[in-house]
């Protein structure tokens, strides 16, 4: 990590970049937060470890408007989001200096906390750390395997390659060991009643904190349709059980074909709603109907939902 800080310091010092977007130490070992570092001095608080799950690509929307280049640290999966943002003219490629940071999967603190009360410190989570992480609790120390503490999304990792970067720091690992669409298939196998019950149960937990919307790189509208006073959408948004019936469904439709499956929505949801399932179902269907498509893999590629080809599936046909 020190190597990365040194490199970022150098970039700031020689004027290559005017600022750095990265992660800043949190008050606990497991909650670093996204941060814009303006000076070399402030980089002393920079951190990069297994808890740096946040996808920083969206921060480049605002950073693009600032004077000078911004260095931004992107993990392999974040680079898909960045490409997608380029495609939608939301970030300016020239204004970004992309450090493709290595990744061996990110950690789910909830999984670590399970059965480990009173955590005082966690170590061994750095990129070059060991296969086990060490947890110190007030009841004693314990080792658990890094792999067992991975976020769910890392089990369906899209791969270790950065889709776009100016330079790469550190080695990455493909952590995929599960079928990407297994969860979706499970839901597809349900009866309509079971599906409805499942989603109603999940979505009823929603407190409409908007964390999913705010973190989502595909949710990049200047003004969200739900805040738009022009079409009564905002007013309709206030009706009872709105979250269940409309908000998440419409959001899924709005990001369909653009969602890179970065999994941030589910990671940040304070209620633990598996929001990524909606998006992943869309991805599965798009793959099936229009051929395999990974949003953000290629910033030039046409999204199947807004592109037209003569081979497109006809209404009523099912792939």
């Amino acid at each position, binding site marked *: 990590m020190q190597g990365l800080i040194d490199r970022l310091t150098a970039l700031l010092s020689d004027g290559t970049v005017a600022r750095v977007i990265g992660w800043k130490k949190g008050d606990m070992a497991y909650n670093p937060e996204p941060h814009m570092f303006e000076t070399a001095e402030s980089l002393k608080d920079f951190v990069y470890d297994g808890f740096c799950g946040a996808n920083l690509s969206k921060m480049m929307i605002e950073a693009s408007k600032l004077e000078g280049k911004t260095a931004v640290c992107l993990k392999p999966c974040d680079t898909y989001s960045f490409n997608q943002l380029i495609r939608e003219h939301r970030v300016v490629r020239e204004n970004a200096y992309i450090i493709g940071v290595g990744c061996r999967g990110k950690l789910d603190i909830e999984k670590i906390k399970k059965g480990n009360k009173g955590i005082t410190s966690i170590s061994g989570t750095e990129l070059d750390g060991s296969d086990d992480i060490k947890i110190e609790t007030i009841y004693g120390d314990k080792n658990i395997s890094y792999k067992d503490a991975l976020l769910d999304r890392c089990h369906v990792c899209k791969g270790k390659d950065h889709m776009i970067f100016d330079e790469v720091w550190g080695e990455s690992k493909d952590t995929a060991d599960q079928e990407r669409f297994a969860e979706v298939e499970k839901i597809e196998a349900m009866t309509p009643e079971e599906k409805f019950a499942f989603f109603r149960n999940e979505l009823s937990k929603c407190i409409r904190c908007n964390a999913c919307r705010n973190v989502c790189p595909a949710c990049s509208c*200047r003004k969200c349709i739900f805040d738009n006073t022009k079409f009564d959408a905002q007013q309709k948004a206030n009706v009872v059980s709105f979250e269940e019936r409309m908000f998440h469904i419409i959001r899924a439709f709005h990001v369909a074909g653009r969602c890179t499956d970065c999994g941030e929505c589910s990671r940040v949801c304070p209620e633990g709603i598996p929001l990524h399932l909606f998006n992943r179902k869309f991805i599965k269907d798009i793959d099936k109907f229009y051929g395999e498509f990974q949003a953000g893999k290629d910033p030039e590629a046409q999204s199947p939902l*807004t592109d037209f080809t003569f081979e497109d599936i006809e209404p009523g046909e099912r792939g």
Partner: protein
Amino acid sequence: MQRIGVFVCHCGTNIAATVDVKKVVELVRFEPGVVFADDYMYMCSEAGQEKIIAAIKEHDLTGLVICSCSPRMHEKTFRACAEKAGLNPYMVEVANIREQCSWIHKDREEATEKAVILARAAIAKVNLNTPLQEGESPVTKRALIIGGGIAGIQTALDIADAGYEVDIVEREPSIGGRMSQFDKTFPTLDCASCILTPKMVEVNQHPNITLYTYSEVEGVSGYVGNFDVKIRKKARSVDMSACTGCGECQAKCPLGKMGKIPSEFDRGLRTRPAIYMPFAQAVPAVPVIDRENCTYFKTGKCGVCAKICPSKAVNYEQEDEIVTVKYGAIVVATGFDIINLDKFGEYAYNESPDVITSIELERLMNASGPTGGHLERMSDHKQPKDIVFIQCVGSRCDDEKGKPYCSKVCCMYTAKHAMLIKDHWPDTNITVFYIDVRTPGKNFDEFYRRAVEQYHVNYVKGQVGKVIPQPDGSLLVQGVDLLDNKQIMKKTDMVVLAAAVEPNKGVRKIATMLTASIDNNDFLTEAHAKLRPVESPTAGIFLSGMAQGPKDIPETVSQAGAAAVKVVGLLAKDKLKTNPCTAKCDPMFCNGCSTCANVCPYGAITYEDQQVRGPGVNETRRVAVVNNALCQGCGACTSACPSGAMDLQGFSNRQITTEVDSICR
């Protein structure tokens, strides 16, 4: 606040028999904005319109709701009426209480309730309507005909004779289409070439007509009066200006003698060289090289045709050329083909060379055909003494094997074939298995009766279950005679299948490029089946020939003329009124994400950097801009825009949600 007048039409008994018109008037009177409501027997009549005009003036109306038939029928009428009274025509809304209400309901109470709801939705919308102004766009005085068969040829000639420039794009190396494959034509038995060839020559020589043969339409943008069409002129590998059409190259092509390349024109009944003209009277009389089969293109060796060409016209280096041309109107005349018979194995078409289709029979009887016009079996080249014709092969089918429609031409051409064969070889026995004989048309039934009465063609009412090839080379036809209630086992020498017609394969792609609608069978849809039969619902697109539906040559030629008149009527105008119901972008909400431009079928959306000012915002950013001349108001962008920045004037998101809300109230 609007001052709205509601006018409820009885439409004779069309509406009034099912909808309590008086009650509708009474109930809508109290809707917000309504200051006047009335009913009348025929609102669209002169007296009805006078009533509307009088009410506008008397009650100072600012908006109208007409409860009547579909807006497709009379929206124009009522808008014009409002304009006469000084009201902006876009302040008029039509509530369809006929097609979508009185005609489909039986219960009077239900229908009345629904009529009120539909009226209420329209009233809610008018409350949000704003006056819109029509713009003007110029007309390019040039027409494009897609397809160079008899339909395209006739349409082109009629337009060209009226003094406008016409281009024909034909996929094949020559114009002429299906008709050029035929031998004789019903009901007068003229030789097809004798009446078609002069027209082909006329097209070629007409000063107003440009031919693009061996060419395909590759892309269409623009709108009525102003289409931009990309045409791919496929490389002929022969210089059109140098070639004299002497035919030396065809004669010397080594592949010609090897007999490996089936001739498309002769339906595979004979072979052709790799450099070829489809038929002797081809227009233009310039061959093409079929690069897929040509030895030179496959291996780089041979080059015989280039060596022997006396005018040095062969050019292997030629490349496809793409030209973009502007047109005011486009006519689709892409014609037909017959269905593939793979799904009808019971007729042994793939099993026996002596089971043939009617088009193959045309070639076998044509003097320029593979047998020089002598009818013979392809298996042993013997003249058939007994022939069975089977009608409705794949027509009138309810399943996915065939087509649900009647192909319309088979009954007549089969009678024609039977008589022509009997004329040449009177001792031939001919049996026709039919379901119904359908011969409406001038002199058509007389024609069919002549086959029975004068030529003694044996018509059997019933279908064939199976054609059974026999070890001795004959064919056993197992069918039924429904009138005798007997199963028939008939030994015959040849079986001719009247395979169903279907639109040419390429039409789907062309219709998509033109945004012209097609039906479930891929036939192009007309704007109105009775009143606008040669126009597509898409403005500026016209229909000619089999592409629109099964029809014979006389009907095709009539329709071709009708389409030409419609095209001329359009090209004669200098300016067209444009639809003011176009999309509009609100830069405050626009992200500049390009989603709308990606889905716009008309290329009407571009982006520019604009200064955006509003509460808490003051910045320059990339936003969408709609070109009103190009926008056709389809609404694709409004539904694709994630933030709701795109809106359609006259059909704004708010107007539509208000309508829905008022219906759900």
